[in-house]
């Protein structure tokens, strides 16, 4: 039974933790959030352009976090984590995107006042 402390700590997933990476991830994500904040509060009214810019900032932040915080690479240790993640993203997008598209079309057709 591999219960000795030595063996567990030598595991690649333990050893792949990188302090500089975590600090960088923190700084980049924080800066991006501040940028988003400034941009968002400057342009108050929701428009397609504003939403797109904010969405892009969020996606960039999350991608960097995936890489630096979650170590989602194609290395032997992390390969399956990355595959599972990459396969889930489209499903996340399909759920939100197709639903929004459908309700938007529905709102146009039913013309219920106040329904966005």
């Amino acid at each position: 039974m591999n219960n000795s402390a030595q063996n567990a700590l030598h595991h690649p997933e333990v050893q792949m933790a990188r302090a500089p990476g975590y600090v960088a991830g923190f700084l980049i994500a924080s800066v991006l959030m501040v940028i988003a904040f400034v941009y968002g509060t400057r342009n108050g009214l929701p428009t397609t352009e504003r939403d797109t810019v904010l969405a892009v900032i969020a996606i960039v932040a999350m991608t960097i976090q995936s890489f630096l915080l979650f170590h989602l690479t194609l290395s032997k240790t992390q390969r399956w984590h990355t595959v599972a993640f990459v396969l889930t993203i489209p499903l996340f997008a399909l759920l939100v995107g197709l639903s929004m598209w459908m309700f938007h079309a529905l709102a146009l057709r039913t013309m219920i006042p106040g329904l966005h």
Partner: protein
Amino acid sequence: MLVNLHGPWSPLVGRLALPQIPYDNPLVVGAFFFSLAIAVALAVGVTSAGRWGYLWREWLTTVDHKKIGVMYILVGMVMLFRGFIDAVMIRTQQVMAVGAHSAGHLGALHGYMPPFHFDQVYSAHGAIMIFFAATPILVGLMNIVVPLQIGARDMAYPYLNAVGLWLTVAAAALVMLSLFVGDFSHAGWIGLTPLTELPYSPGVGVDYWLWSVQISSLGTTLGAINLIATIIKMRAPGMRWSRLPIFSWTSLSANIIAVTTFPVLTAALLLLTLDRYLGTHFFTAGMGGNLMLYTNLFWVWGHPEVYFLVLPAFGALSEIIPTFSGKPLFGYATMVLASFGIAGISWTTWLHHFFTMGAGPSINTFFSLATMTVGIFTGVKVFNWAFTMYRGRLRFDTPMLWAMAAVFLLLPGGLTGLMVAMVPADYQVHNSVFLVAHFHNMIAVIAFAALGAISYWFPKVFGFKLDEPLGKRVFWYWVAGSLMVFVPMYLLGFMGMTRRLDYVSHPSWLPLLVLEEVGIGLYCIAAYYQVKQLYVSVRDRHVNRVGADAWGMARSMEWMTHSPVPFYNFAVTPRVHARDEWAWRREQGLTSLHPDGFQDIHMPKNTAVPLILGGLSCALGFGLVWRIWWLSAVSLAAIMGTVIARAFEKDTDYVISAVELERLDAGHAASSPEPQTVGIVAGGGLASRQAPSSRHPGD
């Protein structure tokens, strides 16, 4: 309370009150005494055989994937029977309540069930069949077969596996309780809003439905994680992806669906729960709520769910047909790709369940095209099965009969599915019994494949075959019943009969409804023969004993274990050299199951924690249904405490030494019936030499 509750409420017992027990309903009272009789008979039987210790040690606290799978299937079969009774009740009501002059009994104006009860019966029928019959049976099959097929000793997370089982049992218990205490949901198995909101469902029925589905879905999600991790991480050396057995491939794709879509159901039910318990406005008719949002979220789960059910069924067909054709599966690569194609596309098709709800032509067209694409992948599978059988040495044992009938049923089921995938056609038949016939047709495919799989793998798990002549009789009555119920139903759908009718106003429909009633009678006969088959098979088990390769011409690795399979599966992990490893070894003449060297192995210990968590979940569910807040709080705290306490348990595994392992394996080999039925190991079945749960063997 944050919501307006109909009826009394007390801090001690919540909404529970004597009138909630339907002691004046003869049907329910009858069901109660029937269930009580069975429970008492079982308890008496187990006590007189002195087997409570055995039951506790070998079954209730086990983490062995094979036993967990058997228990899943057992729960599924019991609930299948309960759901079947509901079906008989629906059929009978509809054949009795035809025309304005039809008689009324037991308080009903027509037929024998008032509308409110009829609604609960079809809601229970749907919910039970999907969540508590089909899902557990298929999950049980995957549980038993997948680790054996990939050469693993158990699933990736044996403890979690048991937790998933007991959560499912807890949820099933909740459903059964709803029969005797309170009502079940009257709003269909789907639970469309706003019918399921408090103003329209002020009773506890919808809450029972919510919590039982929620709890069992949690179990299914945990099981899905387990299966995916097992298949990816626990394959035997040499088992490359191109050598993975097809049933394991379909299990992988099915569970990828499950792990991604069940959370959406969790969210949908959670939001409805918040509406009912806290008075939020997600799906209410007013205050900004959006009724269609529930429908949308539910079917995002609901459509992939049916593929979650059908893919393991297809996988089972892909195992049975090559075995009984004496040939490898035709088109393995396309089968695998088709499975993943189905899984992927199924995520883009959900709106076809509500084409008529007003989304518009462009949206409808997108989802219609996506739906039709699935037909392509399914068609690939049908052709591959046909080509597998072509020029094979066919044997028509019971599993093969089930498999061939499933493929035959897939044709009308799939074609009617493609019909309704076309939006204009769907507008004609939406909410009619044509649709009901279509999806029951597909469910029949799943059921036939599952029953075929059970008879196929039964000898591997228990060491003896099911009685063949009776098995064939069961099969033919299922076929006859299916035809007699659903062909008239298709016709009635075209004639305009809608779903969920407790009263049928067109007397011209009566002849077809009578045919359906005959059909359900044929199913009843099938059920009788099913029970008889089990009894006769167990009685004659020594005559029907089998060895490792029970059918003589199996192909994949699970047939390389002794029958019944020892608790450690393989004494030494096999090394894999080919797809259809067992067939390859047979061809090379390497059929010995005796390894040349043994090593110590680690096995997980039995534990009562999953059973306790199941019990506490049932208590939590019950407390939440009846709004007994103290019970809910205490159960929840106890659940969290138990989970944390388990995390501090260090003694969770034990070692079997190489010497002991060799001895055990020799015992299993000796009890194989190849020479004769000598030395049947005490305890029978799987229990042969189960190591004790709390001490090392040899102590």
